[in-house]
């Protein structure tokens, strides 16, 4: 019955445009509580739609599901093409989930221009969703760029730090710099398709459609060029060491809600998995690319962890730990085997719970001590036992303790890395050790031991809203940690298809194109 009702229902379009339409509705309200309630209602509805998609998603399949396709600008081969597969569907759920939590968190922590804040937040949700569900590269790029505008305002208007103005501009310009190079890569893909299609006399001469682009073979030198161009876009956004310098600033200076989205949703590495690897399988496997990218990843793991170790500020620590985690993801991706890819994908999702969760914790700490500096903490576990407990749970997940979700992901990545080259794994393991060190050391100094001088005598423990956030995150962390198979099953089909794609490359198709040239 439900199936019939929902057969032709454009659920992804609804997911995509619900938040932005909601933002317009918010504009009409004057009352701040009304704005907050409506924003929560919209994000909850969005979450319900996403859960619906997750439930109806057919696992163990590589097909694009819930696909919608309308021609948008036929002259340039641009279409409005949405769809989810095992790689992207979990991100849809994660985005909706985190948005709800951010709205709950912002309920009483954002006090000025609430309406504009919620509108920016909802606009950001739409653009983020757009990045995950777009199957047309230009459509993807549109959302990828549009995301900068609400982000810019969020960092700038509601950021706490003194440097937020330059942080916001730095964020926009760095990301833009990367994405203009990516745009050239996308255009090259389009022109390559055009040339291939003209040779084969197909009707449509231009296309930006991911599925159509996959069918066109790309010569090796072109692949390498396009790979590096797209690498620039994804590396700046991810960010991958050494393109990460905007991240600590943006996370430090921006509001917690923005930091949750920036650090929780790994858009850059998602881009690699969605576009670079399948579109450019031969380039992705060439020795230079693998070595360069993996070495950058390994540097990021060690550098990020090392920097995190010495940060007195918790948010900056989290920023560097993000850099380190992204290093893990990159190493997993470019191990280019089943375990590595699966581990990377799962880790991206996991970090959405754990890193984002730690940012919430940072927010909780900030609202109690008006600071996230270590000097403001010390021995707080006695006063705020609940906060300390959730801090520990989420933190242990982020360092990958067995039983939490972080373990499953990191274990798979290490397995993949060892399988690819032993020294990939050997160096990455060091990162795990450092990771445990920086987190536990910081936790010990902040929460345990003697009570710090600056710690207030009367401090309230977690309030209801904060408990809701912490509990829902912990539930997800333990669920994935103890029973990951539903999540892995959703991914399996697409990850397997990606591995097959990597193994076969575009070589078979290349053969036909060389034959064409010979003729």
């Amino acid at each position, binding site marked *: 019955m439900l199936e019939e009702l929902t057969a032709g229902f454009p659920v992804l379009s609804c997911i995509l445009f619900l938040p932005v339409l909601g933002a317009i509705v918010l504009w009409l309200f004057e009352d701040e509580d009304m704005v907050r309630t409506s924003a929560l209602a919209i994000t909850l509805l969005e979450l319900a739609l996403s859960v619906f998609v997750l439930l109806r998603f057919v696992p163990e399949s590589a097909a694009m599901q819930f696909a919608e396709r309308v021609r948008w600008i036929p002259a340039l081969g641009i279409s409005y093409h949405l769809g989810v597969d095992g790689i992207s569907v979990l991100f849809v759920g994660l985005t909706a989930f985190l948005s709800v939590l951010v709205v709950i968190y912002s309920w009483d922590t954002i006090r000025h221009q609430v309406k504009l804040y919620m509108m920016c937040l909802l606009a950001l949700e739409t653009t983020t969703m757009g990045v995950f569900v777009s199957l047309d590269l230009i459509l993807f790029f549109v959302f990828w*760029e549009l995301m900068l505008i609400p982000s810019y305002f969020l960092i700038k*208007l509601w950021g706490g730090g003194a440097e937020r*103005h330059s942080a916001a501009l730095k964020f926009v310009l760095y990301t833009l710099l990367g994405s203009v190079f990516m745009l050239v890569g996308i255009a090259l893909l389009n*022109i390559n398709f055009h040339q291939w299609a003209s040779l084969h006399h197909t009707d449509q001469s231009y296309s930006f459609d991911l599925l159509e682009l996959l069918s066109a073979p790309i*010569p090796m030198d072109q692949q390498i060029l396009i790979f590096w161009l797209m690498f620039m876009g994804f590396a700046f956004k991810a960010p991958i060491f050494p393109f990460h310098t905007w991240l600590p600033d943006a996370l430090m200076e921006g509001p917690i809600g923005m930091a949750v989205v920036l650090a929780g949703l790994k858009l850059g590495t998602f881009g690699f998995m969605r576009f670079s690897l399948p579109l450019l399988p031969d380039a992705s496997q060439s020795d230079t690319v693998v070595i360069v990218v993996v070495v950058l990843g390994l540097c990021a793991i060690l550098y990020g962890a090392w920097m995190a170790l010495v940060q007195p500020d918790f948010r900056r620590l989290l920023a560097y730990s993000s850099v380190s985690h992204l290093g893990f993801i990159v190493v997993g991706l470019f191990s280019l085997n089943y375990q590595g890819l699966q581990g990377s994908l799962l880790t991206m999702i996991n970090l959405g719970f754990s890193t984002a969760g730690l940012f919430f914790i940072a927010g909780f700490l900030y609202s109690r001590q008006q600071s996230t500096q270590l000097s403001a903490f010390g021995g707080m576990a006695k006063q705020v036992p609940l906060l300390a407990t959730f801090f520990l749970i989420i933190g242990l997940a982020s360092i990958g303790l067995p039983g939490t979700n972080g373990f499953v992901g990191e274990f798979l990545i290490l397995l993949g890395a060892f399988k690819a080259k032993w020294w990939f794994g050997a160096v990455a393991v060091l990162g795990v050790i450092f990771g445990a060190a920086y987190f536990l050391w910081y936790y010990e100094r902040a929460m345990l031991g003697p009570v710090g001088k600056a710690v207030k005598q009367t401090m309230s423990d977690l309030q209801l809203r904060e408990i809701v956030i912490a509990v829902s995150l912990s539930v997800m962390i333990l669920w994935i940690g103890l029973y990951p198979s539903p999540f892995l099953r959703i991914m399996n089909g697409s990850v397997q298809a990606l591995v097959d794609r990597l193994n076969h490359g575009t070589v078979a198709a290349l053969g036909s194109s060389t034959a064409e040239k010979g003729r």
Partner: protein
Amino acid sequence: MTFTLTLSFADLLLLLPEIVLTCWLCLVVIVDFAFPRLPKEQLAILSITGLLATLGCLVWFDVTHVSGALFGNMFVLDRMAIFFKIFIVGSTALVILASIQYVERFRFFRGEYYVLVVMSALGMMFMSSANDLLSLFVSLEFSTLGFYILVGYLREDLASNEAGLKFFILGVFAAGLLAYGISLVYGETGKLVFSDMNLSATPGAIIGFLLIFAALGFKIGAVPFHSWIPDTYHGAPTPVTAYLSIAPKGAAFAILLRIFFVALASFKPMWVILLVAVSILSMTYANIVAIAQRNIKRLLAYSGIAQVGNVLIGLAAGTKMGNDAIMFYLLAYLFANLGAFAVVIAVSHAIGSDDIDDYNGLGRRSPFLAFSMLVFLLSLAGVPPLAGFIGKLYIFIAAIKEGLYTLITVGLINIVISMYYYMIVVKKMYINEPTNPSPVTISGPMKAVVYVGLAGTLVIGIYPQPFIDWVVGATLMFSNLPVPSAIVTPSLPPFGG
């Protein structure tokens, strides 16, 4: 050359839009003199009506595919000419609408202002149809004549006088170059009509065309022929600046397209290098200098130079697709730039200043104007899904197809630089505290112009297909050009070049 003028009535039909506008121009002059007490807004409305009638003619021509040539091919009417005429007439109507309030600042000759604006439009319409060197010269000077006066229209304002004088001296110099170039080309070939020229690369012809290009480069304001732009844009009455930044560029590009693709089609490898150089210079110089500007009109002046650099990327591609992209880009530029200037006019009317610092807190003083400015600036910067993004994408695809990687790289880096100074204005509007929190009011006609700009920017951005179809149809005559197409070279050239 003997010249036999045999005109039938049907031939004259091709001139109908120009004839309509000429008659209307006379009507406006007569009404202005006959009824001196008539409020000048009525004259504006009268002029706009005339322009709309002309626009109607043009649209009718475009729909019914009227085309032909007159006066021994001096004057051609094809779909490309019609496109540019619609572009010019449309922008003129919007400029007049945006002028209504501003005209009150002039102490004298308020009625003549509208006459001069329409007269320049008439000149530019002839420019879009100019198909030989003589009509090029005459129509170009005809249109510039009106601008010489318009730029210095604020008689009590020193800056406006300075602007008028600078524009005049440099404009006359450019006219001299043009005349000299034409005489050299005519001396080498003995022909005036572009399509009749059978060129060989003699020094005279090369120098001649370089001089013609310099004169047209002056018109579009490309580096190194841009030196008049900042001061003129700064000093001129703001509606005139808006006009100057859009319509003459469109008309000059119409002529550039004809010269490069008809007269110089066989010399493509040579002029591509020239255009690449000019494009790189324009974008880089203008974007870097724009960062330091404190006056919004100067900022938009430099941004306009940079935008021309972008358009030249499409011209450098030298293909039909490149031409389509140019025309599409100009369309996107029309709405975004005119809209931005409309906001500037509205703001300067309300607060009496063009300093970027006085835009502080505009987001609170007038949410509508600030939001519109945001949209226009983002469109100029090329942020999706606005018109400017599709325009840039179109141009880049055309250029990448021809393997102009150096140019593309420079263009992309320039997008990032331009984003910086556009974002500075955005920051001032939304983040900074207003020095004077009183709300900024906006008059009805200005609001209409801003709405048209917004509608154009958003519609072209979100649903560009009909506009793409239009420009693709308008350049069909270029579709069998002797240019290398992608089918000849199956794989793209390596990086570089």
